[in-house]
């Protein structure tokens, strides 16, 4: 077994050992996103992945609008690449992804946003 597989397996164990600190959410990934100039609409094909995440931090800001922002950690191998069009359903609420996601190939970290 290579190092990458060992790390992925240990990561899975770490998320499971986090017990109630980690929770299941659904990543709704939008595939084949395209823009139709004839109708001025965006078309996409949604695809769902349910996986565990961990909260890294949470903050609320009030400027032109009230926004709550969370930084979450997820298993990169399970979720894959994320785009601005993807959403996360957490506790029945839909969160939008920020424009930047970081990952080291094993753990992904992304900011998610929801208007209050």
């Amino acid at each position, binding site marked *: 077994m290579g190092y990458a597989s060992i790390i992925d397996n240990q990561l899975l164990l770490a998320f499971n050992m986090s017990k109630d600190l980690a929770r299941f959410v659904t990543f709704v990934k939008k595939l084949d*996103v395209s*823009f*139709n*100039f*004839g109708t*001025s609409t*965006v078309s996409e094909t949604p695809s769902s992945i349910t996986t565990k995440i961990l909260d890294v931090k949470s903050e609320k800001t009030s400027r032109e609008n009230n926004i709550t922002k969370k930084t979450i950690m997820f298993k990169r191998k399970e979720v894959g690449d994320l*785009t*601005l*069009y993807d959403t996360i359903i957490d506790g029945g609420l839909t969160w939008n992804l920020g*424009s930047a996601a970081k990952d080291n190939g094993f753990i992904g970290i992304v900011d998610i946003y929801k208007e209050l």
Partner: protein
Amino acid sequence: MGKYVNLEKDVFSVFDSAAWKAESIKTFPGNFVAMNSGNEFLRVSIIPSGNGINITSISGIIIIDIFTSAGSGPHGSLVIADKLDSFLQGKTLSTTVGSSVQFHSSTMIPKGIEGSLHRASYTIPFNHFGV
């Protein structure tokens, strides 16, 4: 529809046409995050910022950002600009009764390298007429 949506329909009809699609240049509007855009694509932004001849008309500029491979020189973006000219410059378009848009003379400004791409801005003023 109002003047802004009619203007959008008239302008976007160019990029929805079979002739433009045959050019095989990936084209996206502003506020759209392109996926699999490759190293040559366009981003179209409509700036309806000027007064028209009446309250249902408006003027402004279309800015089309031309992205090409960084380090490949200016030729690629200039070829695309010439193609855009053939579709827009001096043309009058209408997709809705009582609405038309007239394009004037274009200009090009090289903006420089952004990551692995070079961006040049193709700009063309327009007058949109509504009744």
